[in-house]
């Protein structure tokens, strides 16, 4: 139990925007130190809601109605804002989905990279700059000096995502939440970024909660996986056993319909309607 990093237990939430509709139904998942867990599901399944709950950035219109989020054996949901502020961006970091909007268009990359180091690690401007250069080299950016002095629009999407990965790992967090970090990128760049995240994660011994809707990506970089449908955990376990020996008909249909997981470059295909119907009955929707 000592190597347990994150333990979400019985987490339930409703959307006030959709008239109190449940968006998370008794979700449990766990993450060990240094583990990469995939969080998979179709659009609207509640993946981002879980990620946001962990980062305590849930929109006001989403209400948690039960459960715990234990990070290193302390419940994040019960913490004071002050305590949360000291953990977020420091022990827990985020790699966002869209590198287009996640960097401030009006500030240089170097300054944005230095923010976390200065605010969370109390570094001087000079020390932060030196560290930022090192970080850019770590994420395999060839001319870190130029990138430091660049504005976001001068970099490609892949480069921007590298910068954001560098920023996330800069503070040496124990948990990185990556919400679809490659969805906005081309397929070829996607693979590089996935490899990079895996490498950074291994080098730092970081636990990663990797949100995606692509089982192929799960096969490529995750150790374990949790599959969601309509806010409910359908199946979970080590990647190999879930993908090679799925227990639930929905999981089997996803694997059959989607790409072979040794060819991780296509998205999910539709699942037969009768399986979805049975699934909804099981969960108790409508």
């Amino acid at each position, binding site marked *: 139990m000592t190597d347990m990093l994150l333990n979400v237990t019985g987490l339930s939430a409703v959307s006030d925007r959709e008239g109190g509709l449940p968006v998370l139904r008794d979700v449990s998942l766990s993450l060990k130190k240094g583990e990469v867990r995939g969080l998979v599901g179709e659009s609207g399944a509640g993946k981002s809601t879980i990620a946001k709950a962990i*980062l305590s*950035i849930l929109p006001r219109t989403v209400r948690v109605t039960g459960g715990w989020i234990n990070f290193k054996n302390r419940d994040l949901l019960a913490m004071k804002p002050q305590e949360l*502020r*000291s953990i*977020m*961006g*420091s022990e827990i*970091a*985020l790699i*966002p989905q*869209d590198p287009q*909007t*996640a*960097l*401030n*268009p*009006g*500030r240089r990359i170097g300054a*944005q990279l230095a*923010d*976390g180091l200065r*605010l*969370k690690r109390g570094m001087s401007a000079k020390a932060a700059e030196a560290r930022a250069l090192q970080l850019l080299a770590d994420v395999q950016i060839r001319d870190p000096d130029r990138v430091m002095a*660049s*504005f976001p*629009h*001068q970099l490609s999407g892949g480069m921007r995502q590298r910068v*954001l990965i560098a*920023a996330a790992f800069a503070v040496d967090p124990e948990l990185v939440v990556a919400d679809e970090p490659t969805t906005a990128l081309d397929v070829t760049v996607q693979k590089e970024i996935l490899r990079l995240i895996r490498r950074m994660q291994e080098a730092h011994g970081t636990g990663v909660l990797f949100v995606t809707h692509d089982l192929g990506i799960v096969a490529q970089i995750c150790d374990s996986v949790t599959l969601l449908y309509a806010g409910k955990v359908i199946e979970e376990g080590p990647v190999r056993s879930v993908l090679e020996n799925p227990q639930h008909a929905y999981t089997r249909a996803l694997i059959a319909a989607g790409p072979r997981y040794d060819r991780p470059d296509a998205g999910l295909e539709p699942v037969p309607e009768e399986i979805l119907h049975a699934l909804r009955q099981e969960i108790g929707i409508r």
Partner: protein
Amino acid sequence: MIAISILNRLIMAAVTLFGVALIVFVLLRVVPGDPIAMMIAPGASPADILALRARYGLDLSLPAQFGVWLQAVVIGDFGTSISLRRDVLELLLGRLPATLELAFAALVVAVLIGGAVAVIGTLSRRTPLEPAIDATNGVLLAVPDFVWALALVLLLGVLFPIFPLSGRIDPTLSIDFATPFYLAESLVRLRFDIFLDIAAHMVMPVLALALPLATVITRILKEALLEAMVQDYVLLARLKGMSEVRLVLQEALRNAIGPALSLTGVQFTFLVGGTVIVERIFSYPGIGNMAIDAVINRDLPLIQGLVLVFGAIFIVINLGVDLLAAALNPRLRHG
């Protein structure tokens, strides 16, 4: 590339000014009212009137009058004011600096007030202060400059007579100005007594001009700030522990200024237009005040000169806004 676009702007500016000049020239001559009738002594003979008309070129056909006027303007001769009997260009150059100082001061005040309220409104979102600010600003948006002027006269001129009600400078103060930019010059020459006197004279007209612009800036800038505040980069910066004040000032503001800028530019041209009535109310000796006299006296050469000056100011403002937008946009600044 840049040279071509500048050349383009200059040509456009010339065409615009020509169009404005032509329209005003024709309008002034088709509406009723005769400048000569305003200046003749009672009992002047018809011959005297004819002589006067000929002296100001008013006996020619309309196109010929325009041609004569335009030819002279091109070489910098704006003619002679009929009512003041002085060179129009000299009159304009003498009065323009007063208006420029007034308008520029009003712009600065409007940006400071409007910007501060927008930032406070953004910081206070989801508190009761925000709807209070929005509602107040929404009402004040509808108050025009001359109403502000009258309210200020009542408040700061009559009820609490703190500031001088009229003029630009206390006439008993002695300083020989080398330029017509009194405010700037007194500051540069470190004559703070003079500077403060001029500034005190400007308080009310500046506020009257600035407040309508400030309300517009508040509304536009706050909207742009709120939009920027929900962007992912603000979320990430917040996660990194940045304070709300820094989030607004460092992360959001620089991206919100761009969208707010062009509308502010348009509103600033309205402000310059507002100097006409506001300078009148406070007897401030600028070109706006002069414009009213010129119209009352049907002083055609002076009106035409004033119109060209206002037109040129509008063009310069628009150019300035575009240049500033380019300077603030990293995409345009850094390839």
